[in-house]
């Protein structure tokens, strides 16, 4: 190993653990003004403070939920558990949900909050794609609709919550006193996407989740209708599918439609 490689390995080891890595102190100039240990301590502290700040930026309402003291403790444990492998600090923090499931298992709402905030942030800077409106579909004759297949903006995600996580998040976001965390009787699904450059979310029924998942996978409007017929009659299925499609278009989720025609 070159001198430089050795120095960098030792410096980094010191930043991870200043006790185990203490041998590195002798590589740094120790003068009367500031000792070598204190000099390295500046880097040791800055490493943690910078990452804690980045995590606080990524998880503002998680921080509000936990309070500064607990959030900082969580963040410090996170730094030790997941040394950053990202060149862009933006992506650091992606493991927070799993980290909280392990370390704050007694407060499941924390992991759910982290998952929600992270997903919002992913939607925020997801790839830009065109947005189709209901009018764009007006030119397609009704009899062709069964053969329509759709492409969706990459920002779309669906997450589940078992606690009143979103209500708590909304209150914290509005700087109001949040409701007491409580577990819901059944889990809820939330659709997250981006519209007008801002992350959006709304409650979504399980039936719509199924329909949306099918559509994302490339199913045609006709196939979506057919799948809904398991739950309702043909006409009702058609109306329901049309309502879903109208809301997807209104939400700006759809970026492309194509007619899937099979040669007969």
């Amino acid at each position, binding site marked *: 190993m*070159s*001198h*430089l*490689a050795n*120095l*960098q*390995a030792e*410096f*980094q080891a010191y*930043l991870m653990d200043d006790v185990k890595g203490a041998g590195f102190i*002798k*590589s*740094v*100039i120790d*003068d009367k*003004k*500031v000792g*070598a240990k*204190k*000099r*390295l301590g*500046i*880097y040791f502290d*800055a*490493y943690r403070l*910078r*990452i804690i700040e*980045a995590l606080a930026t990524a998880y503002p309402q998680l921080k509000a939920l936990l309070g500064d003291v607990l959030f900082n403790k969580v963040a410090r444990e996170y730094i030790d558990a997941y*040394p*950053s*492998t*990202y*060149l*862009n*600090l*933006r992506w*650091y923090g992606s493991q927070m949900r799993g980290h909280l499931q392990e370390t704050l298992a007694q407060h499941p709402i924390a992991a759910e909050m982290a998952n929600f905030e992270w997903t919002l942030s992913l939607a*925020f*800077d*997801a*790839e*830009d*794609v065109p947005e189709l409106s209901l009018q764009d579909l007006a030119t397609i004759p009704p009899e062709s609709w069964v053969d329509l297949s759709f492409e969706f903006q*990459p920002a779309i995600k669906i997450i589940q919550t078992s606690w009143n996580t979103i209500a708590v998040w909304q209150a914290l976001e509005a700087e109001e006193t949040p409701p007491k965390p409580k577990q819901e009787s059944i889990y809820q699904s939330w659709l997250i996407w*981006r519209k007008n*450059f*801002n992350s959006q979310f709304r409650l979504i029924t399980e039936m719509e989740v199924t329909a949306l998942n099918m559509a994302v996978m490339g199913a045609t409007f006709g196939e979506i209708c057919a799948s809904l017929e398991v739950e309702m009659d043909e006409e009702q299925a058609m109306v329901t599918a049309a309502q879903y499609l109208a809301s997807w278009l209104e939400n700006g989720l759809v970026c492309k439609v194509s007619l899937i025609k099979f040669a007969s």
Partner: protein
Amino acid sequence: MPMLILTTYQTFTPLFEIYMRNNLPSLGFGLGLRTEHYNTILETKPKVDWFEALSENYMVPGGLPLNFLDRIRADYPVVMHGVSLSIGSTEPFDQAYLKDLKKLADRIQPAWISDHLCWTGVHGQNIHDLLPLPYTEETAKHIAERVNTVQDYLGRQILLENVSSYASYVDSTMTEWEFISLICEQTDCLLLLDVNNIYVSSYNHNFDAKDFIDGVPQHRVQQIHLAGHQNNGDYIIDTHDAPVIDPVWDLYSYAISKLGEVSTMIERDDNMPELDVLVQELQIARHLSANVLKEAA
């Protein structure tokens, strides 16, 4: 007569070198582009000559930050400034990073691209800090090879910025400015001189800040950074959370007296004031620079 020739030669050398400054003209007086100011910039079109965008903030798939950058770019020249190149690392470059950097440059068409003369991590890990390098020939040679790789890949000269440092190594065999000069010679790269960082490092490591400015290859300085810091008594931390202090302004005037006109900007990252306040602070740089250049003329 020989005396006269010598005098003439000396008078014209700096001018020639400034011209040789890569044929990249000075952009004037700029500011670091910060999210807090996006809307004000678009709405008020402030009297700022150019903006410096932090590359990594825009190395994302899409969304609002890139949209703002596109719109601001339509009104102002922009330069790109990165923190993650890790030019001094002993790890191979992250190819995806270089690719994304180039993609952003293709989109934004920056006047130039800069990053820091430092390393940021090894073993696939990132410390997200600008860590100091030992000033040795071995290190300079290693970095020069990497600068050449990046310049070849991007198809342009890059600017390297001197960082604020809090530690120096027993292994170092030369000064920071000798180290910088060595890398420049081997790469034909350009410099981003952070005058505040010079001040901070000179304070932390007991050298004369003017020696630094005198010691770097002056014709390669394409850009200057100014910023505020936090003085803790026995050492200074480079915090970018306060106005530029007078000794740093003095050092800036000294730098301009040596370098001639150089694209200058203020970096502010924390304790963020209204854009107006920074535009006002930038006026100080304009005045100091103009005064120094007028005196020299």
